[in-house]
């Protein structure tokens, strides 16, 4: 196990370095580059800008600038927001909870529903249910998430008045129930695509397991079909799903961003959009890097969990 994990850790580190290079390149694509903040000030002359550029070390060779920038990132100095001068990491930190809440509830919902659909599709292969689920998943993957959010708001908020159309809680009412009430619609909207993906993977993973010898043996022993399924099939089919969950992380994160923008959900996605509106480049850059780091860590974590759960990898 240590060799395998060390190898994965090393790969993740290499990936982080390349991700930071891409991030640095994007930073320098910004019109005005890192000076953009000051270029917006009408009182700035070209001389002032040149002086600032020298002060900020922008006249140095690019590799030196990169090392400087990456070094600061490493010690947690991600710059300050243009909007309120707060450190970028603090600003992001204030919005993490909302995003994780949404992603968590949606992921739990999609795993529950998707697993059920996937297993049923595999055990009743080519049945009416299976066909409906297959076509349904393809359509679900084709519906724009933000538009599905609009439809949800139209039906459940505007017409039926059951659910709030946005925000994470009613101001002045911080009760758990109030949070939950606001969480329902965005979670369902975000889950649409995730259920579709999860159920397709679960179906094929179950099919991979269901025809293997140990399942036949379990049946031959006279176990009930239900017991075979619960004890022998599901556990083994879920194993590749852990890796999948890690791989799907960028998609879920992106979906959360989309959902947040429609529901004015105060998470990282909303923050990203607001920062775009203000040309708040340090925060935009910060979120870009932060999400990539999150994805790399998520994948690493998934691999570690698989290694811990699967004796073939742990001992092999």
């Amino acid at each position, binding site marked *: 196990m240590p060799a395998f994990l060390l190898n994965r850790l090393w790969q993740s580190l290499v990936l982080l370095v390349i991700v930071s290079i891409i991030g640095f390149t994007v930073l320098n694509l910004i019109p005005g580059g890192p000076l953009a903040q000051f270029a917006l000030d009408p009182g700035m002359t070209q001389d002032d800008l040149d002086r600032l550029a020298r002060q900020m070390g922008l006249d140095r060779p690019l590799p030196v600038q990169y090392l400087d920038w990456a070094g600061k990132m490493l010690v947690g100095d991600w710059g300050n927001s243009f909007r309120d001068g707060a450190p970028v990491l603090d600003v992001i930190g204030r919005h993490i909870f909302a995003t994780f809440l949404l992603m968590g509830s949606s992921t739990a919902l999609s795993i529950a529903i998707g697993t059920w659909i996937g297993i049923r599709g595999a055990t009743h292969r080519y049945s009416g249910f299976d066909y409906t689920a297959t076509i349904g998943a393809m359509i679900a993957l084709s519906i724009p998430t933000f538009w599905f959010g609009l439809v949800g708001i139209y039906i459940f908020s505007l017409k039926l008045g059951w659910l709030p159309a946005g925000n994470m809680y009613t101001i002045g009412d911080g009760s758990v129930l109030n949070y939950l009430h606001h969480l329902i619609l965005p979670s369902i909207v975000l889950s649409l695509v995730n259920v579709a993906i999860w159920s397709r993977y679960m179906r094929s993973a179950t099919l991979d397991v269901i025809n293997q010898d140990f399942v036949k043996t379990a049946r031959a022993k006279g176990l009930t079909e239900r017991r075979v399924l619960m004890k022998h099939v599901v556990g083994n089919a879920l194993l590749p799903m852990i890796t999948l969950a890690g791989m799907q992380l960028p998609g879920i994160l*992106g979906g959360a961003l989309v959902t947040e923008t429609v529901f004015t959900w105060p998470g990282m996605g909303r923050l990203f959009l607001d920062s775009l509106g203000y040309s708040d480049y340090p925060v935009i850059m910060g979120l870009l890097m932060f999400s990539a780091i999150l994805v790399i860590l998520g994948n690493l974590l998934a691999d570690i969990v698989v290694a811990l759960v699967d004796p073939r990898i742990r001992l092999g």
Partner: protein
Amino acid sequence: MTTAAVPSAKPYRWWHSRAVRRFCRHKLALTGMAMITLLTLACIIGPHVLPYDMLYIDLRARFSPPMTGDHYLGTDPLGRDIAARLLNAGRISLLVGFSAMLLSTLMGALVGVIAGYRGGLVGAALMRFTDAFLAFPSIFLVLALAALLKPTPEMITIIIALTHWMEVARIVEAEVRSLREREFVQAGRMLGLSSSHIMFREVLPNAMGPIIVAASLTVARAILLEAYVSFLGYGIQPPLPSWGNMLNGAQQYLAQAPWLAIVPGVTITIAVTSFNFIGDGLRDALDVRSDHM
């Protein structure tokens, strides 16, 4: 000596091939094909036939619901005909989707072939670069780039392509790496063919199946992404219509004019579903093993 009777070999016809026959048996894929053909034709012909121009502002008919007078799909907050805008928008959205697919497939194939054929340090570096791009949620990257750069349709196409070449690159790299040591490639080398000839003329065609499937799904994703970015106002800029920017004001008027949201949204869903159906049919027809579906 008489010439041996040549068995009357049927001339090769691509439409008789196994893949085409299997594709034609795939009902969903055929439905998708039919819908995309219809939609494309409507977008090409429609704007010439409809009674209103997409930019004509009919102030007395603002917020007309569908089927009022000649406004078959109603009008928007400025009194412009939605049907005319929808079909003109379709030209742009479909074009962006197709061009982004072509561009990203080209980029992916290029990176994949070079990484797979060269192998070694260059190959490893290219593939780590590919992995790194995959770590960014593509929506974040597309939005950031669209906000930073000038969002013309061309630029949006390039940005979407820039964030979607990775899958093809991975497919091609794996395929090329496994083919690199095969006899026909060694034979090519012995014949003195150039590396680029071997890579692009001999090896790459073997990876065509997975590439085509990935490409058809990329069109679907590109249309969705364009719609989202334009919906937020960072994509295709008005007065040029796109399916996404038609939804731009829809949330604001959701209560009084729901058709503003429904018409473009349903159209996007139909187009994207069709491409996903086609992709599914191609996967079956071309025998592409995929872990995705």
